[in-house]
């Protein structure tokens, strides 16, 4: 009875590993990119990426029969990111005001620098605009950036984004509209084409 149970558990584990690997290989790049553009920092993105997949593995049995697996995975990433922001805010509240100000003054530059490394472009012609887009993205407010990345980079529909971020579809559309306007304004120096 025990060996039978062990055997069936082993088979089940092997099956689950196989299914998990298929899911992981299919979405790992998308999840990583989302994490990078959310956190604007490679180190934090790697942590978020790993935490997301560990959460997926933990609740994998739920995912097996799910129709919208991609949305579910991105919801996990988004929720984990929100949690990490909340924790950061709590930690920050214990620091001195002056230190906080210094940190805030530094962050846009640091962000821009870290995002520069994220947007490698194929040709030198594209280098500047690639960097400019990355920098413009870091300047976007949190929600604007999330929605823009989900729509334009991860390829989600408005309804799916509204599910992931728990926002009304109308809000998603209007935020994306504002995000695009802001991005275009920041990229004014670059001609159409």
């Amino acid at each position, binding site marked *: 009875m025990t060996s039978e149970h062990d055997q069936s*558990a082993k088979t089940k*584990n092997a099956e689950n590993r196989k299914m998990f690997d298929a899911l992981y290989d299919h979405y790992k790049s998308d999840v990583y990119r989302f994490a990078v553009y959310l956190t604007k920092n490679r180190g934090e993105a790697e942590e978020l990426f790993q935490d997301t997949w560990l959460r997926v593995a933990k609740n994998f049995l739920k995912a097996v029969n799910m129709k919208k697996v991609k949305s579910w995975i991105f919801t996990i990433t988004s929720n984990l990111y929100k949690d990490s922001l909340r924790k950061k805010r709590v930690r920050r509240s214990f620091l001195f005001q002056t230190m906080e100000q210094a940190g805030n003054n530094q962050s846009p530059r640091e962000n821009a620098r870290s995002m520069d490394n994220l947007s490698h472009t194929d040709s030198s012609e594209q280098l500047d605009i690639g960097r400019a887009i*990355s920098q413009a993205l870091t300047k976007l407010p949190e929600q604007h950036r999330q929605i823009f990345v989900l729509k334009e980079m991860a390829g989600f529909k408005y309804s799916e984004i509204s599910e992931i971020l728990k926002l009304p579809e109308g809000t998603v559309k209007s935020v994306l509209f504002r995000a695009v306007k802001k991005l275009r304004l920041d990229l004014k120096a670059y001609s159409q084409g």
Partner: protein
Amino acid sequence: MEDKDFQKDLEFIRTHLKKMKKPEPSHELVEKTRNLCHQKLCSRVFSPAIPKYIWIAFALTLILIAIIMLPFTKSLKLDQSLDLQNAGVLILIAQNAVMLFFAPVVIRKFRGKQKIGSNALTI
């Protein structure tokens, strides 16, 4: 007009986004995460389904208890005093109910620990 402008802006950004090389996770990160996830998956306990005859026996026992106990409900009085003998029986029933309720949790924990131990040897 505004909608046209928006589409134009969006097209402009999309064109350049397509040309941008997107960030990719390093091979090391991918494999490390995969291994951690595999460990997590294996630490889960996949209990076999409860056989049908157990459910049938469970249902029959419940029905039998209900049939036996039903006539005695008439003799129940709310203002009845609780002597030591009756209190003892009640405590015994409560203890059994609690044990039955938590038995699956204890068994699952025990099996989980066994499984983690065997995984540690194989991974």
